[in-house]
């Protein structure tokens, strides 16, 4: 059931805002620079609230139900985080205020930097990047700057495994470098022989390698130390895509494994909400060799302005910084949430997160693997990838997308579908540690029931979803007709 647009419930003369009267004399307006009209909606506050409340009810979130979207770590978003981020002492600070008046905020950032350094095993963290992809861009630019600073200017090749997130090659291209894809082996890991050969081939042009560990199949890269060693041997640097950091909390530190630079996703690993597609936050951690290249500013203690027992926190630009990747200091509101989360969990709690994320994924995998094909049957980390519905069902033209849409009718958000690209009909399932055993079992039950339905009457799946707010949507038509905004004429017809 579709809802009217806010423009369609607009009526001339209504307004939801109550603004003060002008309390100073008027000044003449520059008439030639004024606009004639501004066609924003006109609605009362009551209508406004109902409209967006109704829209929210057409949305599925972690607060609504199980959201096993692989690679996205849709864990519970603790409510204390939200409450703390809304304290006026955090929300109502101007970024250019005198640093003396924002010492609480700068302390929080400084401490969060230190927490992330400790968790990831890095020397220095910059909180500035706005999201994972921007953290990647920053990290890749840092690797480039490191080589340039050493006069090693011919290096412009980045290795990216075929299982990588699409942001990895895209970030490399945005940095003006060339992507060389490294194939996976039959165990789902990086093919070390192919990597070694590529290292030899590109030797003097090698910038480094971007690696996600655990990889996008949810498997820990068993040869990670060998991979790091061979890349380092050829003068390259190792970039860690931290999208899959959740199962490593308290389990292993990427810096200890041999990574030189890594981005963290606060909106995945550290429980801050995804907001329907942002705001994220993608801090970057660096080894001592790369720390001077971090984007900034970052927060440091300024000894000149500190007094005994009273450190002064100040903003500081790293010496060889790649520059600012956004205005100001990053997504401060998100930092407050991640800080609160880390303070509430402590070191034992963080390790428990890693452990139970992995326990839940393996349990769910066991419940499904007898029915759904599992290309790599080994202990997984936080997620696992199935190769679509069983073969006989696929032969009846029931595909991964049909299973995904039918899951909606059972009240679940579908897993990530058709990614990673190296598994046909991929269903990528990440339950996270905050789901209980009964939820996992109910989801598995629905998955098995869907296969039974597909064998009985495949059209139920082709028609799905039947219970969602709308039925299956025509994406081809959207791209062909390309209606990207509301127009009054078309809707009156």
């Amino acid at each position, binding site marked *: 059931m579709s809802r009217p647009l806010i423009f369609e419930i607009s009526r001339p003369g209504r307004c939801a805002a109550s603004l003060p009267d*002008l309390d100073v004399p008027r000044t003449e307006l520059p008439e030639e620079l004024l606009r004639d009209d501004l066609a924003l909606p006109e609605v009362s506050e009551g209508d406004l609230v109902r409209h967006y409340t109704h829209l929210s009810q057409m949305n599925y979130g972690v607060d609504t139900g199980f959201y096993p979207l692989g690679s996205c770590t849709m864990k519970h978003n603790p409510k204390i985080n939200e409450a703390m981020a809304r304290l006026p002492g955090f929300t109502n600070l101007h970024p250019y205020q005198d640093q003396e008046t924002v010492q609480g905020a700068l302390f929080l950032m400084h401490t969060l930097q230190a927490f992330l350094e400790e968790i990831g095993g890095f020397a220095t963290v910059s909180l500035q990047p706005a999201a994972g992809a921007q953290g990647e861009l920053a990290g890749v630019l840092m690797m480039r700057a490191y080589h340039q600073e050493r006069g090693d200017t011919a290096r412009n090749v980045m290795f990216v495994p075929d299982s990588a997130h699409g942001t990895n090659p895209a970030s490399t291209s945005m940095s003006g470098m060339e992507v060389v894809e490294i194939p996976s082996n039959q165990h789902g890991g990086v093919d070390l022989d192919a990597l070694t050969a590529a290292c030899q081939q590109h030797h003097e042009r090698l910038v480094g390698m971007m690696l996600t560990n655990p990889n996008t199949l949810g498997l820990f890269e068993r040869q990670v130390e060998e991979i790091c060693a061979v890349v380092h041997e050829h003068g390259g640097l190792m970039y860690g895509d931290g999208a899959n950091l959740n199962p490593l909390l308290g*389990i292993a530190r990427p810096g200890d494994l041999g990574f030189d630079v890594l981005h963290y996703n606060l909106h995945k690993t550290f429980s801050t909400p*995804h907001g329907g597609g942002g705001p994220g936050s993608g801090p970057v951690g660096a080894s001592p060799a790369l720390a001077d290249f971090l984007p900034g500013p970052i927060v440091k203690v300024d000894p000149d302005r500190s007094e005994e027992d009273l450190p002064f926190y100040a903003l500081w630009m790293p010496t060889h910084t790649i520059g600012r990747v956004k205005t100001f200091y990053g997504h401060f509101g998100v930092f407050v949430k991640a800080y609160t989360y880390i303070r509430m969990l402590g070191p034992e709690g963080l390790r428990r997160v890693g452990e139970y994320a992995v*326990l839940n994924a393996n349990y769910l995998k066991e419940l499904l693997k007898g029915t759904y094909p599992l290309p790599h049957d080994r202990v997984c980390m936080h997620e696992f990838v199935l190769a679509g519905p069983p073969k006989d069902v696929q032969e009846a033209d029931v595909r991964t997308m049909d299973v995904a849409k039918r899951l909606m009718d059972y009240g679940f958000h579908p897993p990530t579908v058709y990614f990673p690209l190296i598994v046909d009909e991929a269903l990528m399932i990440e339950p996270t540690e905050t789901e209980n055993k009964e939820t996992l079992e109910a989801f598995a039950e629905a998955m098995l029931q869907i296969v039974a339905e597909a064998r009985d009457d495949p059209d139920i799946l082709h028609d799905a979803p039947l219970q969602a707010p709308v039925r299956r949507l*025509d994406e081809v038509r959207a791209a062909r007709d390309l209606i990207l905004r509301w127009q009054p004429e078309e809707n009156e017809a």
Partner: protein
Amino acid sequence: MPYIPHSDTDRKAMLERIGVGSVADLFQDVPERVRFPNLDLPAALSEMGARWELESLAEANLTAGEASCFLGAGAYHHFVPAVVDALVSRGEFYSSYTPYQAEVSQGTLQSIFEYQTMICELTGMDVSNASHYDGATSTAEAVITAINVHRMRRKKAVISRFVHPEYREVIRAYTQGLDMTILDTAGEPEDIRGALDEETACLIVQYPDFLGRIEDLSPLAAAAEAVGALFVVVADPTALGLLRPPGEFGADLVTGEGQGLGLGLNFGGPYLGFFAARQKYVRKIAGRLVGQTVDTNGERGFVMTLTTREQHIRRERAISNICTNQGLMALAATVYMAALGKCGLRTVAELCYHKAHYAAAQIDGLDGFSVVRDKPFFKEFVVRCPMPVAEINEQLLRGYVIIGGYDLGEEYPELEDHMLLCVTEMNPRQEIDLLVSALKEVTS
């Protein structure tokens, strides 16, 4: 442990089903050398303990509400109606992911479609994407769009030096690997026109500019068009409640910071980068786009569209690496724009305009101060001061709890001892009068 629901019985049953003896056994793939590090982090707090700690950190800051704030320069103290936070605080919105599965994400998708429509109205443009991280990154993406439009054959961007200094830094950071020429020009129209040539992919100006000034952009639009460069305008959305939209001046791309649209100051983030374009560039722009379609029953619905431009499909050939953007901030801006509506946003803009001009007139009358009035201004204006800006600000803060203006001397050497003041609807007349008397006292 907070947030983890498992009982001992659950854990045992699950391990048994998996076929391992302990949770630690699940980590055999992790090299033993590094497995299970002892993290040197403070011990866990209860919720009460965490609240106390965070509240004490928050109280250690001076808020723009406690002080009288006259600081702008890219982040603005505007009023945020309560309805904005009430709606974006709904868990169905904020605890969802990017709307990959459209049928259960219609709330997010429809609100983005509404957002795109409102941004088009505000800017006078044909299409808007679903958002970028902030005004600076949306402007950097505009530069990349411009070189893509020119198929990498033009790699020069001409930027007025009265575009926000941090935006210019971000553009340099984004394009450092792309072998581009980024040319900061003196800000006067004749200087800008002189810098344009057949190599220029785009011209970027800010409206109002960093010094708060407004002017008819048509001559610059014509100059850009004459050399085939894209005309990119970085606009303040609050000003667009009152001023002619950049689309009317012939802008090709309009970017800007949406923070003023209901987002609060948040110590610099999260904010909202908006990005609007003329229709002919729709396949060249970065970021997510939401389009209207129908479901199998013929009912209207919304999906992400033209995704073949994006990184998850095109990988190294994608237009940008952007994935997560500012979904919830775009929702906040949508609710804000709907709440203020046709008249309210204009009212806010007029309040800013009149109050800023009142403040400027009062300050201009003070001994030793003068307001730079070379062009009309909106809510920010430049004041020449009789002593260093840092010293004035220090005294305003200590003596009067006033957060003074932005010190222009560092970025613009010719504007040493010049302060950029910002006045919004949040500054009642008493605050402005207090500022005026305080400036008089601290310099006498």
